[in-house]
């Protein structure tokens, strides 16, 4: 069984900074990490590998600085990584990204399951996973938190607005994975040694994959970021309640009711 996990490298959440002039996320000189929901998708794949001897290939698209995260994925237990990297991909939004990744996945071939994080922490669109499923004409289950492979089929628990649903589909298929549904493992010594020995990340260009240059890059991306606002949080009231626990909670509840924050 072959599982392909799509990941993105993003600025580390605690270090997110918005450039005051351009109003865009600072990406240079900021520590990076695997997009946290993608790390959950990777962990889900590695658990399948633990139990089913699946092969796990990690795929990303971006600059070669993404090697850091792709190497980490191998150190955590993935078999190998592929980075689609090409100048002409620069500025691609979710539409060309989904196209380019789906072409790359086809080139890899032989896959049974594709896993993506539900969305990225730096853009939060959640488009790419479903976009890939669309391009490849695959069944998909979004917002999953648990996956079982039974009788050659995928059964997945999907988080819905008002509860959870269990869905079943045939393979190959694509699932997007909920942020925080599991705890991604730490890299192992064996994994880090494999990375040090080299050759765990393969770089492919658009030409290697056969990606149409006229379908990618900034000019083929329909999304226009017209304006970015910084949300200013209102000042806190700063009231502190103290005393015996029961009495304190009572005081807090009364205050919240008085301020119409909650309704009794």
């Amino acid at each position, binding site marked *: 069984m072959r599982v392909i996990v799509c990941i993105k490298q993003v600025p580390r959440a605690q270090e997110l900074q918005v450039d005051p002039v351009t109003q865009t996320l600072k990406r240079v000189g900021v520590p990076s990490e695997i997009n946290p929901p993608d790390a959950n998708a990777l962990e889900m794949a590695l658990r399948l590998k633990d139990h089913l001897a699946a092969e796990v290939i990690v795929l990303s698209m971006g600059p070669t600085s993404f090697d850091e995260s792709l190497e980490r994925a191998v150190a955590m237990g993935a078999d190998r990584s592929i980075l689609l990297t090409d100048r002409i991909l620069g500025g691609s939004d979710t539409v060309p990204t989904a196209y380019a990744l789906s072409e790359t996945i086809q080139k890899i071939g032989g896959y049974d399951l594709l896993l993506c994080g539900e969305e990225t922490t730096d853009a939060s669109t959640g488009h790419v996973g479903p976009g890939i499923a669309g391009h490849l004409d695959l069944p998909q289950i979004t917002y999953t938190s648990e996956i079982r492979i039974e009788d050659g089929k995928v059964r997945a628990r999907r988080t819905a607005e008002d509860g959870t649903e269990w869905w079943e589909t045939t393979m190959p298929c694509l699932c997007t994975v909920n942020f925080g549904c599991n705890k991604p493992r730490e*890299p*192992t*010594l*064996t994994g*880090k*040694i*494999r990375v*040090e*020995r080299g050759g765990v990340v393969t770089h492919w260009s658009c030409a290697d994959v056969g990606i149409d240059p006229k379908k990618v890059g900034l000019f083929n991306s329909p999304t226009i970021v017209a304006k970015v606002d910084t949300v200013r949080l209102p000042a806190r009231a700063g009231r502190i309640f103290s005393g015996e626990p029961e009495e304190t909670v009572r005081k807090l509840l009364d205050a919240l009711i008085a301020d119409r924050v909650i309704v009794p």
Partner: protein
Amino acid sequence: MERFDAIVVGAGPAGSAAALTLARKGFSTLLVERGRAPGVKGMFGGRVYAWPLADLLPDWAKDCPVERSVVRENLAFLTENASLTVSLDSPKLAQGRGTSFTALRAKFDAWLAKKAQDAGAMLVTGIRVDDLWREGGRVKGVSVAPNDHVAAELVVIAEGAAPTLMRKAGLRADLEPREVSVGIKETVELPPEAIQDRFGLGEKEGAAFVYAGYASMGLRGGGFLYTNKASVSLGLVVSSEDLSRKKIEVQDLQTKFRMHPAVQRLLRGGKVVEYSAHLVPELGAGMMPQLSTDGVLVAGDAAGFLINNGYTFRGVDLAMASGIAAGEAAEAARASGGMTKANLAVYEKFLRARNVLTDLERFRRAPLYMKNERLFDVYPRMLMEIAERMYTVDGSGKERLFDVVLDEASAAKVPKLKMLLDLLQGARSM
């Protein structure tokens, strides 16, 4: 399964010196460090005696991240508000194999680990090795997790003072309070010009201070100060037994030490930018753990290779020298047929050839002598009273020096014979 000839645990001075030596001798070598980079978890006073570097890397001075070369040694006795300092200012201090320098671990350890990598060792960081991997009772490598073993013929334990692997290897029991001191250090930022002016140093020159007496407020131990390029390392090494017995917090001690007029004068306007604390092994040669067994060698602090004789404080040089000796022992054992306990026993010979064990044995009485509390309380005060009387001219009549000494010795309320014995014992142990 990943496989190496040798795995070195800990990329401090001992581990990196061992990995460098092993790699040069043709061992495929893995160097594993628990910090995210070498040196980030390490701590020391701040000075390196360079002699093992001359053997390891004859060109070390070219790119070694030296803060300042030590050209002035100071031994200062403190009482509550006074100080008496003996200062040695000699060009010989910064020459040849006898040279020593101040350093910052994050830079120094990273540099030495890089040298090991350049020699062919593989460095892996961010992994804590906390068990040996055994099969049939024999050490076969290291183990990080149930499914994460890496095989090796030889494991060099260079994990530092906290004996995690040492205990797992059955090479020593857990530390007793009497076997460790607590080291504490503050890095105080000062402009390079201020350091040069206050300590009377050139741009690349540095000073080292050892403080006795009130530095540790009568507790067994002492203080140190080293000048870096743009900061000063100030700290204490204090008996952990005394700290718990007298219920004194080590950080209070450090603050009082920093606020002592003789110290404060040197640090005025400086900003404490870093604070660290660490265990310091005080085993002495008599209590040294087993240094080798089947498939295992022990180097550096893990082996208790530390000398504190009251005026010099050595750790990094012994660590590096023991790392080199471990590499040499591995080579000899390989030539004799393998990493067996019997073959690796040759380690001791190589340690002696570098005077590591010899120096430790020579000063083995020092830890015991240094445990004499009078040394940290009664005698410094007595010395100060004598010096104060020597230099005070106020018209109240001047005594001869000899009478002053006798008088103060009587005032100290320590029997003369005991004092004489302390003096003799001190002379022998140093």
